[in-house]
Every structure is written in structure tokens, then in C-alpha cells.
């Protein structure tokens, strides 16, 4: 059972959560000012990295809130979760920090 740390409820089983796509994608303030290619980029183009990814999750069967997570798409490991609205963290620094603390133990 993978545990995911909800920023509001703490560590919970993964079955309580639902994935909600890449995080920090802001809707354009004036969509009609965009050309078709730009609109397609906003709607469909995603980073889809192999490695660290910042994504939205929802604690749907818990507090029901959306939040963001830094997850490694290779190992499925979640390095950090934080409330929606907080700025996008430096993902490499976040992962390095967690791994450094682990190696100290």
C-alpha cells in the first residue's frame, strides 16, 4: 500500500486519492487572444517527464481537497506534497534534500 501525505490529513492509503494531471498550468487570462496552436498547447501539451514531475492530486475519499505533489515518475516515489496555491518548488532541490536526509540516517 502506497501512502500519500495529504497536506491536510497526513499520511493516507493511496486508494483514498485520485490523480488530477500536471500542476501549475494556469488558464490564459484571455483565451480568445490565443491562436489555435497556443490553445492546443494549453489544453493538451504536457511535460510528461521521465523523472521528477509536479502534479495535482485530490484526496477525494478524505478531505476532498486538491493539492500538489512532487513525484518521480520512474520510482513512483512522492518527495513532497503541498497545498494548492503555493509556488512550484525546485523539484531537484526537493528530491536532493530528501535523499540527503535519508543518507544521514
Amino acid at each position, binding site marked *: *500500500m502506497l501512502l500519500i501525505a495529504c497536506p*491536510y*490529513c*497526513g499520511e*493516507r*492509503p493511496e*486508494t*483514498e486519492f485520485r490523480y488530477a494531471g500536471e500542476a501549475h498550468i494556469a488558464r490564459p487570462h484571455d483565451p480568445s487572444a490565443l491562436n489555435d496552436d497556443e490553445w492546443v498547447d494549453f489544453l493538451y501539451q504536457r511535460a510528461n517527464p521521465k523523472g521528477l514531475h509536479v502534479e495535482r492530486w485530490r484526496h477525494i*475519499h*478524505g*478531505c*476532498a*481537497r486538491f493539492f500538489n505533489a512532487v513525484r518521480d515518475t520512474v520510482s513512483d516515489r512522492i518527495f513532497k506534497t503541498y497545498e494548492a496555491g503555493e509556488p512550484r518548488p525546485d523539484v531537484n532541490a526537493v528530491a536532493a534534500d530528501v535523499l540527503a536526509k535519508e543518507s544521514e540516517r
Partner: protein
Amino acid sequence: MTEFLGTELSGTEFSGANLANARTGALDRFAGAASALVVTPGDPATRFIFRGGKAAQAAMGDAFGIALPVQSCRAATGQSRAALWLGPDEWLLTGEDGQAETLFAALESALAGVPHSLVDISHRNISILLSGPKAAAALNTACPLDLALESFPVGMCTRTVFGKAEVLIWRTGDTLFHLETWRSFGPYIWGLLSLAQREYGAL
């Protein structure tokens, strides 16, 4: 049992007292197990879902008579009412059955002009009560939450998943749990709990 009586007890030794000391009742082990897990349907109740910001929370606390808990996953109780934290701006408010209309009107008038959402879900939900030393184990047959007293203390409540159904689990005592779920999920959850009862020999 008849064989035991025939071989071990002669006619003169046969008395009620001897019999009671000598034998174990055929159903004794079930009787003991039954107290380890008792599952009962909860009474009908008045239930509201309330959502709102800080101003609405304070106004609702005053009007409802219980300050809404702000710590995550905690319930506050008083005067046969309860306020259960469901999310950072969402609570379940419960009270005795039959007061939904009057209480709803009173709360709405107390919160007039303050942005909020109040929904009567009295009939959407049902409750199931679990008691006994095996209550937590019974829940864990279909729910992976850590229900140890240290990590899920008395007064803690949360929505979670039981089997495939969403439920709200509220610990009201060391070995007492209050479950809330949508009424159409009731038979499914009751069935899973019946399996748990069979597991603990309590049918």
C-alpha cells in the same frame, strides 16, 4: 453431551449444580465472541453538510451551539449534537432526528448575508455503530487506515474507503465506532461487516 452425562454422572450425582460446573454450553463460545464485535444500525438523525469561510464558521458555531473543530479529522460534541471536520472548510453537523426543518431554518437565518453552503443530507446518509474489542479489526477487514488508538484516537473522524464504498469513520470510544455512509451503500457495507462478524465467530 448425552454421552458425557451417561458415562460420568451417575443418577445420584446428577444435580443442577454439578451439571453447571461440569459442562461448557454449546453456544458459550459464540456468546463470548458476540461481545467482541457488535454491529447495529444507527438511529435516524438530522444531518447537514456545511461549507464556508472563517466568518461563516464562527457564525455557524454560535448558531449550532458547538464551535466547529478546526483541527483536521476531529469531531466536537455537545447536547446531543456533533460537528465533524470533513475538510478545511467542510463539516458534517448532526443532531437528533426530527428537527431538520426547524434547525435548518434557524441556521440559515443566523447565517443570512454570510457566504456559505448548507445542505440537508438527513435522508441521504445512514449510520452503522460498531462496538467491542474487535470493532477496529472489523473495520480493517476492508479499510487500510491505521486504527490503533495512538494514530486514530477517540474523537477522530475521517472520510475513507471501506471496500469500494466511501464511508465516514468516527471513533466515539476506545472500542466504539460510528460509521456514516450513503444509504444505497448501506447493504454493501453491512454485508462486509457480516463477513467480519463471521471471521470473529460472532454470527
